């Protein structure tokens, strides 16, 4: 049975709107700053087989592999055994999960007793236990990073709402009110998605809705394949490097082989370095998300709904035991950093064949800033995710001071921090002039935040990258400027590495400066007006402009 044109359009828009609403409500009702201000969460509607049909466009990284996170749950606890109130939970990096902090919840949607789909949400939880509040940069295995929820099935009435699972979680985490609140926001968002799908079933019959879901997957697949077909066949290579693993100074190679063949793309990370002892290992699901996001961003218009169908044309492979597909029990908390280099490697591979569609490398890192303090009333944790400058393209300068491409976190307003935290104060939040690489179009600027520490016993924990290896310019453009972190203590300047935990003293000034993006095209080709504007606005200094 084929769904008619109009019903297909209406149901598709309805599903996409419902997923978007789930995402908006999850953000708006969440408790921890990382979800509510930074939007580090995602939501999707899935068909009854666990294929993502529609998603809220929040965080690219969490969206690609939701299906992969779902499947181990359904394999263990088949979907035909589910009843009202059941849910799947999974955060196991070695069974389809990402890092532990991203907990995926799947709630079945029933219409008149028949399973018609799933509401799915994932949120980055502020603290899930483990060796240190919010972030444990010293973890040498996944167990030191927090609680693992292996793929499981529970029931809301029986296990949550004061039940054994909720009690177990509450007892093992540091800021239970916020974390449990965020779980509840996830459950509620799943419920809202469910209600919208049920409405559609009531209006169009479940058969038509299920059919329309299938067609929506096919539709995205067709559009993705059409976009891939426009590129000539060929095999392309790209590579990029992480600064280090946080222990040695050795750069870590990530290499991609990208094969375009008809209407398919195969990304193979053969040649990538082995897994490491620290948390920059990237679970396979995250690697897949990085590869997919890059291909999707480069090749297709932002208008194509991203779902399981759009993934059918793209295959991502990573050697088992490499940094992009590590063995248990590797620590994975900072997996974003390797994921970004996996993204950059694909982008660089595609540059020669699609020079107008790619952009130069940007800061392309997730810089996490955690400031925590243990007081008599328990822990206070401030966690923020910083991006930097985007790489330039042949269409214009890279975007200044924005979250990096695989993520999309908002900043925490300084006034919100001033309300909430009394152990530090942000005294400067500004663009870093001259941080974008020169070029016909310049890279986006990085930015800095200066934190004045006002209390005792404050611990700073971070991970970041591009402190030593700059993002490379494209087609003659200059490299972007590296990031740095410093502590100003009296007359002393302490330069910190990119991945570290460091005790701060009252009166310290912590300066986190993120990197700029690289330029595109020869700097000599830059329009005079653009140079003049950069000078006048102070985005560039006179010395820099002279070059």
């Amino acid at each position, binding site marked *: 049975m084929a769904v008619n044109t*109009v019903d297909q359009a209406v149901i598709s*828009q309805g599903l996409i709107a419902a997923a978007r609403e789930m995402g908006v409500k999850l953000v708006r*009702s969440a408790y921890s700053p990382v979800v509510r201000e930074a939007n580090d969460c995602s939501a999707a509607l899935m068909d009854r087989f666990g294929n993502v049909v529609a998603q809220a466009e929040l965080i690219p990284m969490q969206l690609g592999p939701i299906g992969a996170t779902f499947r181990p749950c359904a394999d263990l606890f088949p979907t035909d055994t589910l009843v009202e109130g059941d849910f799947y939970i999974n955060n196991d990096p070695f069974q389809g999960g990402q890092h532990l902090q991203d907990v995926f919840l799947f709630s079945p949607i029933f219409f008149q007793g028949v399973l018609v789909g799933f509401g799915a949400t994932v949120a980055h939880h502020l603290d899930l236990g483990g060796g240190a509040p919010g972030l444990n940069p010293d973890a040498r295995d996944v167990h030191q990073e927090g609680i693992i929820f292996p793929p499981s099935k529970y029931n809301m009435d029986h296990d949550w709402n004061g039940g054994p699972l909720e009690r177990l979680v509450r007892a093992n985490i540091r800021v239970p009110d916020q974390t449990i609140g965020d779980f509840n926001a996830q459950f509620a968002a799943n419920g809202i998605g469910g209600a919208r799908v049920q409405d559609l079933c009531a209006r169009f019959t479940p058969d038509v809705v299920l059919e329309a879901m299938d067609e929506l997957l096919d539709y995205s697949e067709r559009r993705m394949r059409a976009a891939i077909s426009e590129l000539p066949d060929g095999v392309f290579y790209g590579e990029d490097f992480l600064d280090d693993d946080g222990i040695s100074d050795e750069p870590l190679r990530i290499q991609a082989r990208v094969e375009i063949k008809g209407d398919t793309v195969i990304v193979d990370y053969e040649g990538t370095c082995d897994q490491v002892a620290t948390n920059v290992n990237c679970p396979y699901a995250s690697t897949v998300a990085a590869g997919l996001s890059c291909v999707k961003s480069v090749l297709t218009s932002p208008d194509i709904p991203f779902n399981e169908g759009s993934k059918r044309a793209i295959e991502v492979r990573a050697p088992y035991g490499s940094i992009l597909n590590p063995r248990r029990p590797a620590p994975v908390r900072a997996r974003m950093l390797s994921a970004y280099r996996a993204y950059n490697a694909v982008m660089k591979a595609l540059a020669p064949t699609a020079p107008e569609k790619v952009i130069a490398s940007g800061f392309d890192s997730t810089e996490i800033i955690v400031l925590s303090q243990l007081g008599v009333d328990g822990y206070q944790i401030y966690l923020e995710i910083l991006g930097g400058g985007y790489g330039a393209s042949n269409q214009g300068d890279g975007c200044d001071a924005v979250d990096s491409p695989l993520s999309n976190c*908002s900043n925490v307003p300084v*006034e919100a921090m*001033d309300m909430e935290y009394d152990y530090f104060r942000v005294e400067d939040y500004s663009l870093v002039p001259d941080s974008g690489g020169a070029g016909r179009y310049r890279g986006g600027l990085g930015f800095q935040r200066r934190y004045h520490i006002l209390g005792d016993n404050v611990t700073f924990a971070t991970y970041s990258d591009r402190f030593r290896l700059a993002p490379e310019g494209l087609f003659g453009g200059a490299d972007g400027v590296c990031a740095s972190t410093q502590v100003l203590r009296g007359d002393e300047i302490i330069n910190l590495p990119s991945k570290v935990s460091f005790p701060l003293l009252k009166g310290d000034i912590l300066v986190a400066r993120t990197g700029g993006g690289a330029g595109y095209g020869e700097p000599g080709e830059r329009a005079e007006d653009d140079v003049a504007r950069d000078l006048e606005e102070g985005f560039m200094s006179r010395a820099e402009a002279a070059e």
Partner: protein
Amino acid sequence: MRVGVEVGGTFTDLVAIEDGRVRVAKVPSVPARPDEGAMASLAAGGIDLATVADLVHGSTVATNAILERKGAPVALLTTRGFRDVLFLQRHNRTQIYDLFYKKPEPVLARRDILEIDERMNGQGEVVEALDETATAAQLAEFLGTGRYKSVAICLLNGYAEPKHERQLAALVAKQFPDLTITCSADVTREFREYERTSTTTLAAYVQPVIDSYLRRFESQLAEQKFTGRFSIMQSNGGRLPVAGMSRNAITSLFSGPAAGVMGAVRQAGLSGYGDLITLDMGGTSTDVCLVADGKPNLSGETEVDGLPIRTPVLDIVTVGAGGGSICWQDDGGMLRVGPESAGADPGPACYGRGGTRPAITDAHMVRGTIRAEEFLGGHMDVDKDAAANVFKDLSENLDMSLEETADSAVRVADANIVGAIQLVSTERGRDPRDYVLVPFGGAGPLHAARVAEELDISTILVPPNAGVLSAYGLLASDFLQYETLTRRIALSEGEAAADQVQTLFGEMLDRITRSFRDLGIMDDLTYSYSLDMRFIGQAFEITVDIDADLLPGMTAGTLLELFNEAHNRVFSFGESGMHRAEIVSFRLGASAAPEVVPALNEGISDKVVKGQTQIFDRGEWRQCVLLSRAAIALETNGVPGPALVEDGTSTIFVPNDWTATVDDQDNILLKWKD
């Protein structure tokens, strides 16, 4: 006489009411000089300004000043270290996969921003005092260039304690008395520095433009011996005497859509309906707004050109579905409508001005729901063949007949409108079935019934003179102002919290009453109270309306109950613990009703037309009754669908299973036989 003049992008509308007699006029707008269009409409309506007691004006002057970047040269004074707030924005992207992403452009450049040494903390205590001597010297140098006309002052945590902003304003005023000064504390006292700075800067940017526009307007009025009261429409659905605009120009953004909603509210209210969803469908887009018990929903945030504005505005959602919206097929084969629009020029293909792509108006022409001979009451020539021609390619690609294609496109447009209505209803925890749909604008009444069916809405009310409802809304709106204030109060403080609520609302009430008194409005002010609340830890607040009668005896327990109810409605979950909830912001509205609220039920053509026509609807050609508005009134049992009612500037479509009647307020009611 009472006169409303609404300057829109394409037309300037006028409604004049005297002794219950209604006059309407519609003239082309003069985009570069909106006041010329307004004066032309007064002339066209034959209005003797000397006899006008009440003149209300709405325009797109403020909106256009921002969209076209033609505001006043503005400088921004901010706290040391925070010069880049307008460029950093919120660090996120609105399109996550767009590699070429650009942030919305602020209305000023980085060199127009001056950092001042000072700092408040989040509790409003001074961390670093403002050194007046040093600052005065700094200002002399920075503003002394003569580059600026307007100065925005927005300091970090200035919402909590505006002392430093006031000091700065005084320093600027002393040295540069000609500059317009706008303090954030006078525009919005809510936290989040980017949004507040953006609001303040935009306010300062449009203020001089509005000031000079209104001065020019007033002098033209004076030349024509106007001595009545002159007031200006605002985006919050109320008006203000012109003097009130000298501090509040930012509130005049988007006043047109707000006026339309107010017109709909008033006209539906005459028939006893207060729970409404308004649907204003024009050439390029559709605006929808939910009205509960005669009060349109408010939103604390809106944006223009991607730049945030935090002042209370009517919660109007706009979707790109209008008569000019383009019907197309995407590269995955899906039929789409909008957001691209043929606009007014070239317009739909049937206008014969060079439009080559099928638009919704063309689709109606192909399926017979707009008749060429009666387009805009027969005042405009349109080309039916051109409409059919532009649908040929699309229909071949979709393998459907022309009329099937047109019918499908209309249904896709309907679905887009349904989506917008769900945003203001189901998504806000409101059930659309409890509301009456009130369509207006040229194309609203054509789509309303099918939209209603999708939402299970069974009653539609079509106001008379729906084409000039916005201008009427100007006359029907109250005088209205809001005060907002961010102040965090935990409910765990118990009765102390409730006391603080009383005290703060009391102070706000004094301020707003004084402000109205300054504008010469003293009598019968009505107040509305609301609190933005959240569970501790959440970052977004839910607005909880507080009944004025309940306020004196308010307890922390009642507040928690009200909040939980609202939270549950929107998010489907709540919490019971008192220690977990807090108040974040206060909002107080004060309004005064105009002396007379005229009705719009006059000046309707009494031409009785009754005939037959053919329309293609839901897959088949149907024989359909064709009527004028006056003809329905003669049918005592109402007119069953399918029927088309041609009503001057718009056409009402009554499908099968619907019946149309006219009530004693001259509203047409459509009822669904469900």
